[in-house]
């Protein structure tokens, strides 16, 4: 199948916005959903909505099978050893916060270090700032190269024997940089630190194998990979998760409850307090089925072609600054001279083209780039070269429009 055929499976893309065919270039913020995922959610609510892991009735069993079946799909999708290592969370943010609150707060103290990079999303910065504040640990940053990549020499120089946690995004949501996670994880381990990976922008677009990466924790969100909002995954190595305390307490996660003390269920449920995100997990399972049908290698190849094409077309325009390295994932972050990115986005929107403008939840990176905001076009399997042509035409219009009014 080609992108044009994949595209037909996404009902939302077949519409006009402001009188123009929709060109959706904001998949790094959230992806659109194929009909298979929408139907899986619909079927769950119409046919077998029920709470899981309790009661003996038939619907409860079907819902439990659906929920736990999704966990097995996730396990296979990222190459984990066991479903005990797959914890459903609200998203990447909650997954990283779980590691910070449970592992970070318990294992760090004054003199210890947490190492991250300036390109991280706020959700991989602030949880560590909080851990540092509470425990007295130091938060350190691996410096970036001028093109927005990480040099392993800098990793070697930043990570020390005092480092307890290294946390890095696999793909940058702004620069499109693909970081050498496997190599960084090896340096972390050599120094006795655990490796946390923010996979929000990688899991949707490339084959992830947590055992090959040898990361200790890996976090991602369903909604950026054709699945529903409100659900994500924390993968953690079993030996670590077993030693960690839950961060949310209540129903579903308990073994025995007494008046003064309680005990927890085994993994992964001890980390899933409360009625879980049942429909979300089933939707994520359907999204994984869809992505495996398309083939993640095909997704990556397709986006690579689109990114190259977009860069080539953008270089034809005068007064465009592109941020990030030449070798990149399927997104382009840019600014037009003399036109603020919000104004670019508004003009593009009037042409039916959806892009993101702002700081992309990466204020430290904006500071590093010495800009206050940028515009970003991000691609997914349903985008085509026609979308990029429309985007370029829209940018030309924006340039002419603001050139004219000034």
């Amino acid at each position, binding site marked *: 199948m080609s992108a044009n055929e994949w595209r037909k499976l996404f009902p939302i893309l077949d519409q006009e916005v*402001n*009188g123009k065919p929709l060109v959706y270039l904001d998949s790094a913020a959230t992806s659109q959903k194929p009909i298979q995922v929408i139907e899986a959610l619909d079927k769950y609510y119409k046919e077998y909505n029920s709470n899981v892991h309790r009661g003996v009735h038939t619907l409860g069993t079907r819902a439990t099978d659906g929920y736990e079946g999704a966990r097995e799909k996730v396990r296979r999708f990222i190459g984990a050893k066991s479903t005990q290592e797959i914890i459903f969370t609200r998203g990447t943010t909650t997954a990283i916060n779980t590691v910070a609150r449970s592992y970070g707060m318990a294992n760090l103290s004054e003199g210890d270090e947490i190492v991250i990079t300036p390109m991280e999303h706020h959700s991989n910065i602030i949880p560590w700032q909080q851990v540092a504040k509470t425990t007295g640990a130091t938060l350190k940053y691996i410096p970036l190269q001028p093109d927005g990549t990480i040099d392993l020499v800098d990793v070697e120089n930043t990570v020390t024997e005092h480092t307890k946690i290294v946390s890095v995004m696999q793909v940058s949501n702004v620069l499109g940089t693909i970081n050498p996670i496997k190599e960084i994880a090896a340096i972390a381990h050599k120094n006795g630190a655990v490796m946390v990976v923010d996979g929000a922008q990688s899991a949707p677009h490339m084959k992830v194998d947590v055992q090959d990466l040898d990361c200790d924790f890996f976090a991602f969100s369903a909604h950026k990979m054709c699945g529903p909002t409100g659900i994500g995954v924390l993968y953690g190595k079993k030996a670590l998760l077993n030693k960690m305390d839950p961060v949310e307490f209540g129903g579903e996660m308990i073994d025995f409850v007494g008046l003064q003390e309680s005990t927890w269920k085994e993994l992964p449920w001890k980390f899933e307090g409360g009625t879980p995100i049942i429909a979300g997990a089933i939707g994520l399972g359907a999204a994984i089925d869809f992505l495996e049908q398309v083939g993640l290698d095909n997704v990556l190849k397709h986006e690579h072609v689109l990114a190259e094409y977009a860069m080539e077309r953008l270089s034809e325009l005068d007064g465009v600054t592109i941020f990030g390295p030449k070798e990149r994932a399927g997104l382009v972050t840019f600014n037009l001279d003399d036109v*603020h*990115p*919000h*104004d670019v986005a*508004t*003009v593009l*929107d*009037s042409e039916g083209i959806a892009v993101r*403008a*702002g*700081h992309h939840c990466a*204020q430290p990176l*904006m500071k590093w780039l010495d800009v*206050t*905001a940028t515009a970003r076009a991000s691609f997914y399997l349903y985008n085509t070269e026609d979308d990029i042509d429309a985007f370029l035409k829209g940018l030309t*219009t924006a340039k002419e*429009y*603001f050139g004219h*009014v*000034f």
Partner: protein
Amino acid sequence: MSSNLDQLYRQVIMDHYKNPRNKGFIEDNALTINMNNPTCGDRIQLTLKVEDGKIESAKFDGEGCSISLASASMMTQAVKGLPVEDAVKLAKIFYDMMLGNDYDDESYDLGDIEALSGVSKFPARIKCATLAWKAMEQGVGKDEEEEE
């Protein structure tokens, strides 16, 4: 191009963006308000000189899109010389304009501000236009708190 877009980016707005009025910082004994639009990174620093319940002068500095900076420029012009309570009333009129509601265009001379009425057709941009006004409201609120 759509006429909505032309309404949004009217000449007078672009003029305020390119040639902002009252850009700068009031040095002596002024109220200083820093405000961000956390969703997009726009930033304004507003300084107000309030004497005897009247805004003697207003200056701003900041970074942002054409709408937020033009609106800040227009706001400083509009509130200069107004009693604080009138400036606050004017802010309410401006918010009505932004929400696309009927607004009072008789009590005050709205001048250039009315050029921003096209923003109401662009819900995602309303916060850009209201940032400077929110900063002004916070500033005069602070002033009142201090007097109490």
